[in-house]
């Protein structure tokens, strides 16, 4: 996909999103209410309208072939780079999905092992050190010091003794 094609797709998508936002804003009054002032939907409605107009402007420039992006025939994301970017993005999504099931202390070490060992090709020794050390530091800092309970999923029972000690 070229940059020019990506520009078109992004402007179209954002245009649709603007229309959706206008529609959602209009669920509240978008005009003047007597004795009360502007309705609750007025502000987001007109802002979404400007968003839509801006998308129109971007599309207009695309059609006229104006500007560096609208005329660029470079590849949007180079194929030999795409693999790395996709791998990281997908790993992040899987990690967040796992937060709710096996908890942050199950998912984070997996993410760290994936990144340090398989993306970075570092030694198993370093990988293991980081995969254990970072979650421990996080537990200490967030749960014990800041008292912010992070999602644990099915691993919750394992933490009950720790809560008893620290909280």
């Amino acid at each position, binding site marked *: 996909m070229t*940059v020019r094609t*990506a520009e078109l797709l*992004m402007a179209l998508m*954002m245009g649709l999103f603007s229309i*959706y*936002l206008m529609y*959602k*804003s209009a669920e*509240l009054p978008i005009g003047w209410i007597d004795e009360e*002032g*502007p309705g*609750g939907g007025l*502000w*987001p409605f007109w*802002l*979404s309208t*400007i*968003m839509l*107009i*801006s*998308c129109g*402007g*971007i599309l207009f*420039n695309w059609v006229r072939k104006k500007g560096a*992006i609208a005329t660029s025939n470079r590849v*949007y*994301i*180079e194929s*030999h*780079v795409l*693999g*790395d*970017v996709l791998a*990281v*993005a997908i790993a*992040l*999504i899987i*990690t*967040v999905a796992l*937060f709710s099931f096996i908890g*942050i202390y199950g998912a*984070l070490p997996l*993410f*760290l092992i994936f*990144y*340090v060992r398989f*993306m*970075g*090709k*570092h030694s198993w020794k*370093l990988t293991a050190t*980081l995969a254990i050390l*970072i979650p421990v530091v*996080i537990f200490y800092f*967030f749960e014990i010091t*800041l008292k*912010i*309970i*992070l*999602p644990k999923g099915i691993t919750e029972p394992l933490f009950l003794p720790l809560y008893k000690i620290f909280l």
Partner: protein
Amino acid sequence: MLETIQLLMQGFVVVFEPQNLLLIIAGCTLGLFIGAMPGLGSVNGVAILLPLTFLVPPTGAIIFLAAIYYGAMYGGAISSIMLGIPGASTAVATTFDGRPLAKQGMADKALIGAAVASFVGGSISVVLFTFFAPPLAHVALVFGAPEEFALMMLAFATFVGLGGDDIFKTLFSICIGLVLSAVGFDIISGEPRLVLWDITGFLHGINFLVLAIGVYGIGEMLWTVEEHALGGGKSMLSDATVTVKRTMAALRELLKTWKATVMGSFLGYFVGILPAAGATPGSLMAYGIAKQMSSEPEKFGNGAIEGVCAPEAANNAASTGSMLPMLTLGIPGSPTTAILLGGMVIWGLEPGPRLFVDHSEFVWGLIASLYAANLFTLLINIAFIPVFIKVLKTPFTILAPIIFTLCLIGGYAPTQDMHDVWLMIVFGIVGYLMRKLDYPLAPAVLAIVLGPLAEPALRQSLIISEGSFMIFFNRAYAGPIMVAALLLLFLPLFKKVYDRMRAAKPAAE
């Protein structure tokens, strides 16, 4: 004047509390590291680390974050000089002469020059700040809702008029930030509003940190993953020899650069005050002027030490400058200060000129901490130059997962809702894709912070005026501000018409 000095002294009392002193030193060191890492700058550091500050009271928190801001401005120079890759966009101008110096085996001279110039820039600007801020806040005390709204319009208009990005993309970015900030509840009628796709997670609104960490954490890191893969993962690190003798010689030589450094400091400070301008254009302008001022302009680009000093003084001065409108008017002067402002709201402080009256300890503690942070950063920087050079050797594949981890938890911590973590990932990926198409994202971050303040200001103004927009034009302060905002907004259009007329003239003759 005397009162200002007295208040500043009270600020120093706050700064010298052991906990705050430790926070400054920790902040400076962290900032230096973050700044030194290629790709990461002050805004990324402040966004990713803000959730950690829930631990300490607001004064400590802002002192810590301001120290990171400062440290990162110094640190940016390190990778500009050693790798030839700017540590952040604010240090781009430093590569022009810093890199040639490093290649000639004088990396230590460039690094010391950058550090000292940063210190001078920081010092001059913080003195200016100390004496500009109280009168400005005093004037702003009479500001009502119409003035506040006009000021915010002015802040957004600077992005359109001076930002230099595509006008439509800038407008889009501003508006999407404002709309996202309107998600949740309508503050006046109390009705649920913009609950997108009826997902209940949107009922509590969109915390600005979710967007900020999404864009500046996840998005920025994806960008860096790509850059890293493009570069084949290798970069050229210069050698630096640091000895006491060479350091003294370098310091002596710096005396010659005082003109460029002082010019950069003043320029950076005033450019920094403008929301769309800030440290990057400030340092580029300082570089250009230093070259014009120089008696040997041909040396620029081939390793002129003035070419390192002027932009480094300017970017530090700009970071102080950008705090002026944030603290006195409640309008951030840069994306980083936008995040600081959002932090103030989380800590329960109401931004604006009342801060000087109601939270004098907070304000003066922050100002005094800038003096201290400036000094500490200089000392830490010069003492540990070899350590920071080592940091640059840390493989990206070790730093990246650590930063991603901090982002994920930072996205969860403020609201403790998995919905926000998902939203952050979406913002990160979409932000990355948009950035590749030159959509400016700083206006969106500024807008999501200012949105919850702008909307009530607009609605209250309209209620006062019974629906007439003239209220923004017929008041003593709001009028000129609004006119300036409109002029800036239409500046690109004026320019276009002017260019076309000029182009048409020779053809007609």
